């Protein structure tokens, strides 16, 4: 429950609207309370025998009341429900903006699916509480208050009798609500078992089929499915109970009123009109009574949702500008000399160092080749430069400045990375290539596309650079994606260019062509190239071989070949591979 208090700042922003909404609720309930009185008077007049034009006055007054009440109801919805939509908007905005600022360590152990669930279900649960929840609570409360005052003023004894079932109703609503909550939790639980069972069986279908376990799998699924049905029926037992009970109890009040009211009329201490008014008032109370249980339900759902949202919103981004940041550093100060000083790194919650005591200097404008087995720490090494992760020990300097001092946006603007997995957005090719700027510089885009070897491919698409990628558009091949990703990095014109195995999906011939084009790009900037292929990096000014979290070898291609170590082995193997391919 206490988590819902965190909504207060959101509510405060719309204070005026919310208060006026409450005011409209009071007005609409007040006018509603007059309506049965008018009808009652009309019926009293009728049973006494009266003229028709008097009736018309009653009818018109009655309609006027309904119109008034309708107007206030309209205004209530237009204030309170609209506010809830606004708050939903703000909440989702805050949630999403916060997510954009969180660093890799946050995303590392969370699935996108889970985050999506928060963004949709949890926010909508909270919205339902803020909107309908608050509106109906207030409405119910004022309605009951008004009606009770009027009923007591009409006849306190009949009112008390009519309300006799009320405590029972409240008790039942509470009890049934609790039972429903518990049992539906069990139903959800088994439903998720059912889902994981299916998921697991289909994922392991090869094992299931090759060991001929289909029948057994069917049996096991059947067991859960049967249990699910049983739990559902036990829930149905409670749910089926709630509706008949509710209307039996409210109808009981009506019957009580008819009986005791009837006797009072016979005694002459009550009029027929009063009785009719009474009946209508009771009818008006039915809904708020039922709504009461529903509101409790809304709160029960909103509280844990809010808790989940807060657990994310309260996460502080661990990589961000802070008091140590030197705001005076601008992109002009970055020239591209990189130095690793005794850098070690391990992932949070892990005990193993992925990188250990890395010392490395990359002079401005030179190219560094990085090679090594899968898992030797190559990608980790380069992700430390734009501070996707922060070093565990040691420090990284760019042009002599600790990168932790450089404002994060300056640092990242100076680095152009082509990541291992080419992630492209489902928009046009031109928007993807020019992603780094807010507008599209046509010439720059075409030049970037040419240099990355993308241009020819795009030229073959009917819509050229306006071609949309992704589900609504075309699906690019792995090589095309990589080249688009390279073009995107070139367009950025970074001081430091990093290619993380970015040519793995293109054949060696295309690779050679692209490398030739890239030469002009790399000439005046610092470049780091990770590759599995010797051919990609053999022309680099300096090459490091990573092995077991350390720099095992360093030197130029020729130096490393003559050293006869890991690099030489890799080289020989790749020659063999080429031979086998051509076999």
């Amino acid at each position, binding site marked *: 429950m206490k988590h819902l208090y965190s909504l207060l700042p959101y509510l405060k922003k719309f204070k005026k609207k919310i208060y006026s909404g409450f005011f409209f609720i009071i007005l609409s309930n007040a006018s509603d309370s007059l309506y049965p009185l008018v009808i009652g008077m009309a019926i009293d007049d009728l049973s006494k025998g009266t003229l028709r034009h008097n009736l018309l006055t009653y009818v018109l007054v009655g309609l006027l009341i309904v119109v008034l009440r309708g107007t206030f109801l309209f205004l209530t919805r237009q204030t309170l429900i609209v506010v809830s939509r606004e708050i939903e908007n703000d909440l989702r*905005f805050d949630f999403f903006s916060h997510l*954009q600022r969180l660093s890799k360590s946050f995303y590392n152990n969370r699935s996108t699916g889970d985050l999506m669930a928060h963004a949709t279900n949890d926010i909508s649960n909270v919205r339902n509480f803020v909107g309908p929840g608050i509106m109906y609570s207030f409405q119910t409360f004022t309605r009951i208050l008004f009606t009770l005052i009027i009923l007591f003023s009409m006849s306190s004894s009949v009112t008390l009798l009519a309300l006799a079932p009320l405590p029972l109703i409240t008790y039942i609503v509470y009890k049934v609500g609790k039972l429903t909550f518990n049992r539906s939790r069990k139903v959800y639980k088994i439903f998720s078992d059912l889902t994981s069972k299916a998921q697991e069986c289909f994922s392991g279908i090869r094992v299931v089929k090759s060991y001929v376990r289909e029948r057994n*799998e*069917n049996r096991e699924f059947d067991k859960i499915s049967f249990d699910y049905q049983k739990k559902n029926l036990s829930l149905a037992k409670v749910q089926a109970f709630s509706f008949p009970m509710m209307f039996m109890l409210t109808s009981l009040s009506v019957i009580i009123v008819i009986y005791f009211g009837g006797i009072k009329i016979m005694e002459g201490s009550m009029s027929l009109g009063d009785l009719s008014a009474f009946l209508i008032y009771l009818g008006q109370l039915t809904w708020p009574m039922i709504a009461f249980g529903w509101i409790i339900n809304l709160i029960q759902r909103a509280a844990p949702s809010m808790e989940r949202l807060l657990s994310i919103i309260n996460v502080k981004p661990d990589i961000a500008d802070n008091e140590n940041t030197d705001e005076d550093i601008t992109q002009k100060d970055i020239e591209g000399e990189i130095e690793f000083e005794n850098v070690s790194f391990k992932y949070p919650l892990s005990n193993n160092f992925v990188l250990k005591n890395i010392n490395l200097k990359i002079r401005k404008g030179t190219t560094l080749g990085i090679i090594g087995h899968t898992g030797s720490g190559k990608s980790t090494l380069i992700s430390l430069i734009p501070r*996707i992760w922060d070093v565990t020990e040691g420090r990284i300097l760019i042009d002599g400045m600790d990168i932790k001092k450089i404002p994060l946006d300056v640092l990242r603007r100076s680095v152009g990375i082509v990541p291992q997995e080419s992630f492209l957005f489902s928009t046009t090719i031109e928007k993807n290539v020019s992603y780094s700027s807010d507008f599209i510089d046509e010439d720059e885009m075409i030049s970037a596309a040419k240099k990355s070897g993308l241009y020819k491919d795009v030229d073959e698409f009917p819509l050229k650079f306006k071609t949309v990628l992704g589900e609504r558009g075309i699906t690019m091949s792995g090589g095309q994606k990589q080249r688009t990703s390279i073009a995107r990095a070139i367009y950025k014109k970074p001081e430091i260019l990093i290619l993380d195995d970015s040519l793995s999906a293109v054949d060696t011939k295309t690779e050679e062509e692209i490398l030739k084009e890239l030469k002009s790009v790399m000439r005046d900037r610092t470049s780091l190239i990770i590759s599995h292929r010797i051919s990609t990096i053999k022309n680099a000014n300096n090459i490091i071989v990573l092995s077991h979290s350390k720099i095992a070898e360093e030197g130029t291609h020729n130096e490393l070949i003559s050293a006869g170590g890991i690099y030489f082995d890799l080289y020989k193997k790749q020659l063999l591979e080429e031979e086998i391919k051509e076999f």
Partner: protein
Amino acid sequence: MSEKAAHKGEEDTLTKDIDSKILKRLLGFFKPYSRYIVFATFLTIIISALAALRPRLTPIAIDDKIMNNDAPGLQYIILIMLGTLVVQGIIQYGMTYLTSWIGQKIIYDLRKKIYSHILSLDLKFFDRNPIGRIVTRVTGDVEVLFEVFSSGLVTAFGDIFLIFWILYFMFSLDFTLTLVTLSVLPLLIYATSVFRKKVRESYRRIRLLIAKLNSYIQEHLTGITIVQYFVKEKKTIDEFEEINRDHTEQNKKSVLYYAVFFPIVELLSAISAGLIIWYGGGQVIQNAVSVGVLISFIQFTEMFFRPIRDLSEKYNILQTAMASSERIFALLDEKPTISDPEKPIELKDVKGNIEFRNVSFAYNEGDYVLRNINFKIKEGEKVAFVGATGAGKSTIINLLTRFYDVYEGEILLDGVNIKDIEQMELRKNIAIVLQDVFLFSGDIRSNITLNNPEITDEIIYNAIDNTGLRPFVDSHPETIYKQVTERGSSFSVGQKQLISFARALAYDPKILILDEATSSVDTNTEILIQNAIKKLIEGRTSIIIAHRLSTIQNCDKIIVMHKGEIKEMGTHQQLLEKGGLYFKLYQLQYKEEEISE
């Protein structure tokens, strides 16, 4: 990506127009329960009659009893009212439970049917469809149908009957007054239909915007690293807010529709009550109508609007159900491409002789993965397949187990074409150990037996001893009942492999297929694995996709594959001496091992 695509594909077809063919098929599932449905319908008729009866009693109570000062008579009427109330309550409870029961039964049947159907489909289906989507068919899609199968149909009947009873009682009370009361009905129907149209359109837009919003969030969370690399957080947030704002504004529009519609409905029913008082009041004055009748008419008008509103809701439920049913039926119509022979040959005492005769295969038409493969493996022989990735080694396994069927040629087991053997019969004689070990949730024991009751603890421990898994099992106080968490994430790669070896050993097959894992493990585990493999292939026909030198050296024959063809065949020594492809592969993949040994 695939999950997102599935998600979006479903967004697009959230509802569907009602299709009589699908509806008919859907109704077919009611058949086994038709007696119960008839009974439930009968109950709703009674309920609706009782519900309509109570307002009908009001004028009797007022006019005959109260106005005539007949206290005992009033008591009598009250008792009747109480009686109908209790009876209605009980029947209502029974009916609601009964319809849920019917719904649950049908859902259970349907789910069972879909699940076993999916399991009967061949691997091609699983390779082609993302798992998430298949799971949705047995979970979410079935669940959507519950409402149709439970309350949907029966309560729709109930609503229709309620309208009927109300009209019946009203007309029986006063014909003209009923007509006057109903005069606002056309207006109400008109207002409702306008509202429905507006709301439906608005909902459609909201749904599209939600889909847009979700895919934007999804995309920019998946690509968060790119966003941050390019310092585009602010731009992303701005773009997001644009969609978020659209969504909010569209929602506000639909709030407006509701805010207008509800007061209008109330106004209309108030007009209707006003008409009753104005016209009926005139009649009362002329003594043509009693006050009691008037009051009961006001009660009736309140009752009348609910079933009409409910009915249109039922229509919406049915529309949602259509989309799900269509997907479910499409799945049920999917036929396995690999079928069992009509007159299967029963295998008695399988020896384990395997022959590939002129076998060719392509996963995609024309794109051959295997070309004209010929080889023989004799009973008890151990054969290793080697070759670069994509050479076609795994495909050989897929064909031998009939996960896929050959395009050309034939595969013989003990001289019988495997197409003439029942799939299950065939697979019972083959055990496969895959590269990626798949562990199920449960314990070590159930992962070895796969819940086959024929595998006793003795067999299990035997397998555990033979695979060298004993120390590992004994290191847990729960021994073989040690739970496997999240598909074995708490076990090491080596341990998982040993468990899968034990699984194969426990099944004691005639033929063993082993796709050796490439992942490197520590030296101790490596020795364990090597020993276990020796035990595993002992005394049975074994086909191994080998990555270890020691395994190859233990084999009787090596088949070298390259680009879908067999290039060389022979023993390790013969092939080395030949100095061809195998020699190269050996240098590339195995030599290092030899050196390190």
